[in-house]
């Protein structure tokens, strides 16, 4: 029982990363109808950002947690303005191809500079464990889970309770109608893109102390996250986050009971969801 619960907790922690990335993807997709393939690469840049800040500037984890997502948000906004925006009038698949190219370039540039072995990160903010009643658990992992849940809830509140959120949701669902009400939806496109990218960067910084930091870390993750958003329904921010946590747990339990399926379980689940509910568990059928 304890090992079951412990594994479930491991699943929630890895689900934290899926949820943060899926959240960013879903927010960007909602506003721009763009699936950002570079999301995994930006996550990787976030982790490398933390490593570089620690090694060359001597700035610790908390600085990285603040500065790296902010810097990536600026980079993301520049990317949207200079590149992505040129293609938004065309078929959305062109932007998928563009961001795929950006992902390959980022990944290979870092591989050129750092090789493909993992970079050590030794600015972890805490060590030690916390007593969760039934078992002791590494304190940092508990922190990651808490941050991820807090961010997801905060974004949820931002989208549902504030004026900005209302505008963003309205331009997601009925862009023409929203414009007809005199709201300049294009004004929000760039900041929303930057925000989604910042979430990927945040996930990257959070990953630095507990995961292998190398040029492949983003690519491995993003494909799983694509499966997550297909399962959850990309049109649904809520569904993407829930699917992120759920799939983290599913994989962890798979590790425990059917180790041979640990890497493929998420794809099998995707197959089942496509059979039963092609639009995703929380999605609605639409042309994208």
């Amino acid at each position, binding site marked *: 029982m304890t090992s079951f619960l412990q594994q479930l907790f491991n699943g929630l922690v890895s689900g934290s990363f899926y949820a943060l990335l899926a959240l960013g993807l879903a927010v960007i997709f909602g506003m721009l109808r763009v*699936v950002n393939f570079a999301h995994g690469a930006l996550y990787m840049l976030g982790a490398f950002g933390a490593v570089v800040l620690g090694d060359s500037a001597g700035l610790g984890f908390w600085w990285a947690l603040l500065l790296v997502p902010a810097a990536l948000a600026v980079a993301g906004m520049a990317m949207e303005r200079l*590149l992505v925006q*040129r*293609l938004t*009038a*065309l*078929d*959305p*698949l*062109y932007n*998928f*191809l*563009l961001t*795929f*190219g*950006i*992902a*390959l*370039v980022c*990944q*290979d*540039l870092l*591989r*050129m500079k750092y090789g493909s072995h993992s970079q050590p990160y030794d600015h972890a903010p805490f060590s030690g464990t916390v007593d969760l009643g039934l078992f002791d658990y590494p304190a940092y992992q508990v922190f990651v889970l808490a941050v991820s849940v807090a961010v997801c809830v905060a974004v949820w509140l931002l989208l549902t309770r504030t004026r900005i959120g209302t505008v963003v949701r309205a331009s997601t669902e009925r862009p023409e109608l929203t414009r007809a009400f005199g709201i300049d939806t294009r004004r929000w496109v760039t900041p929303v893109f930057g925000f989604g990218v910042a979430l990927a960067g945040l996930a990257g910084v959070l990953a630095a102390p507990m995961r292998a930091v190398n040029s492949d870390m983003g*690519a491995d993750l993003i*494909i*799983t996250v*694509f*499966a997550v*958003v*297909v399962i959850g329904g*990309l049109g649904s921010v809520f569904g993407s986050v829930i699917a992120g946590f759920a799939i983290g747990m599913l994989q962890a339990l798979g590790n425990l009971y059917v180790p*041979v399926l640990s*890497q*493929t379980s*998420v*794809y*099998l689940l*995707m*197959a089942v969801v*496509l*059979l039963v509910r*092609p*639009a995703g568990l929380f999605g609605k059928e639409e*042309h*994208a």
Partner: protein
Amino acid sequence: MILGLMRRLGDRPAWMRWGLLAVGLAVAAILPWVLYPPVATDILCWGLFAVAFDLLLGHAGLLSFGHAAFWGGSAYVTGLIALHSGLPFYVAVLGGAVAAAVLALPIGYLAVRRSGIYFAMITLAFAQMVYFVANQWSAVTGGENGLQGIPRNLPGVDLSDAFTFYYAALPVVLLGLAAARRIVRSPFGRVTAAIRDNTDRVRALGYPADRYKLTVFTASAFLSGLAGGLFAVNHGFASLQEVDWTTSGKVVVMTVLGGIGTLWGSLVGAAAIVRLEDWLSTAGFEQTDLVTGGVFIVVVLLFRQGLWGTATRLLRPRPPAPPTPDPAEPADPDRTPHLTKR
């Protein structure tokens, strides 16, 4: 779009079509004299792969990001047949292609339930699953080491020379290309083109659109499998690189560089990328993903018609005064290939 396509097919005079065919065959015949023979064979394999991919993307409007599963899946099956049976390599490659088509059935069946960007993500995810299976099932696939020492069997002929092997592989590729062209020009191909342009209308006309999509997906996988099998025999090994997601990306970039929907443009795109990578690796630059990614960015931003599309536009006589563009249609379909129904 349909008008543009008809003009492209119809307006090319007979002498030009036969001339193109003659030039193409002549280039294919002398290629291993001009290039290092293994690279020439690589161009054949990637060229067929890219044409098979364009059959799906350009002529059915489906962007698969998981075609490495069929190329690589066939590479493994071809390798296993050649290693364990000693049959002629043609049989092994055919077996690999059949295996790729069989693999495409369940993947395609699930993927055609969604369109556009979802189709791309779903095919990518299933291809990643194939990658993990190839990685884990090391008793059969050799895991990280891959399958090594795949022989080039052909009774009575010594194919150990790369030069000879090129000419042994050429007929397979030509047959594959002819099949792709036949599919595009067939009544079936007209329906898939119509599905690309307006799926709902095709459904309303009573065509089972999903079944058509699945059929063209499987056909594309079969031809990709032919290419992947030949590639494995050419190199004598099949590795995880063949099922990696970057391989799926590479065939996309070849097709886009050549010109989406031009079919033969894919051959040009494949040849350009293979040559470029070969030239860079000779110069000691091994960052192939950087090249692929950079070409992606440049082509998608500045050069969406691709090499072939640009060439045909420049060669085609100017049509009489174009109709006023519809402001609701931001992209002139003649300038930017339409990928899928939006």
